[in-house]
């Protein structure tokens, strides 16, 4: 099977994630969409690793996962803090930083 199909799949998943980030308002769902985009990128890395016959791509995907995990921890903590003060998880609520 041609791994370029996998790369195309990852592009599709990435775009769906991007649309999700743009249209959903619940901060947690937005966050999950970001995770989906990261995973799409990982998928591309894995496919590239296979095409090049080189494990470096997998290692990079591994690091992406680690960083994503760290990001999730901090991001969710921020969401919880915001929720605690504003009683809402909507990403449109904190919009005071503007003109």
């Amino acid at each position: 099977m041609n791994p370029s199909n996998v790369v195309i799949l990852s592009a599709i998943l990435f775009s769906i994630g991007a649309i999700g980030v743009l249209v959903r308002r619940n901060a947690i769902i937005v966050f999950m969409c970001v995770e989906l985009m990261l995973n799409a990128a990982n998928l591309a890395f894995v496919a590239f690793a296979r095409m090049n016959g080189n494990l470096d791509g997998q290692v990079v995907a591994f690091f992406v996962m680690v960083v994503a995990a760290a990001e999730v921890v901090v991001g969710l903590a921020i969401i919880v803090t915001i929720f605690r003060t504003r009683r809402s998880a909507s990403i449109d609520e904190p919009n005071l930083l503007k003109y």
Partner: protein
Amino acid sequence: MSGEDWTFWISGSFAVIGALGLVLSRKAVHSALWVAFTMINLAVLYIANGAPFLGMVQIIVYTGAVMMLFLFVLMVVGVDSSDSLIETLKGQRIAAVLFGLGLAALLVFGVGNGLVNAGTVGLVEANSADGGNVEGIARIIFTDYLIAFEATSALLITAALGAMVLAHRERWIPRASQEELSKARFLSGTHPGNLPTPGVYARHNAVDTPALLPDGSVSEESIPGPLQARGDIRAVDHHEVNEIKEVGSA
């Protein structure tokens, strides 16, 4: 179609379905479950593409840890909080879909254009060089990427500490003592103690039956608030009450 092809088309379709489900579900919990589904399928694709280690890590870290963390936070924030479907930003949804589709089209076009004729080396040789996929990745991580690896350890610790700091709520006033709490309760002017329990009779054992005060009158407070709101209060049969009185006096 080979077995690998089947795997790709099935898992790939499932992954896309899961992703669409994530974006289209109204409830956040459903979204989370759809993501978990997508990630499991992605793990399958990883394994199918010669990355068994990553596939396992994907299941353990993402579906196991990260998604459970998401669900946990969802519970904290409130499961019920479903998005309203009315878009408040003008043109946001249309623009987002247009941009998303454009992005997808460009990416697919670019990738297809660039990779359609690219050969595939395959990972058989690379995976077998050190005796397996896990050993190969281990060798690379602990040699070429050692510094990055050590840096991620610092990153994880920092993230954990950061999360603790962010989620921590500082106590600004000292915890109230029992005495202070009771004083506050009495000062508030509401019913200080327990409300009377609903009535319990030989024939009726239900919370919708009001309790009787010593003089035989009905205590409205003994009925739980929701039942009162519904008007779901059983009337007191005074004949029975009199019977009970007689039994008591005999």
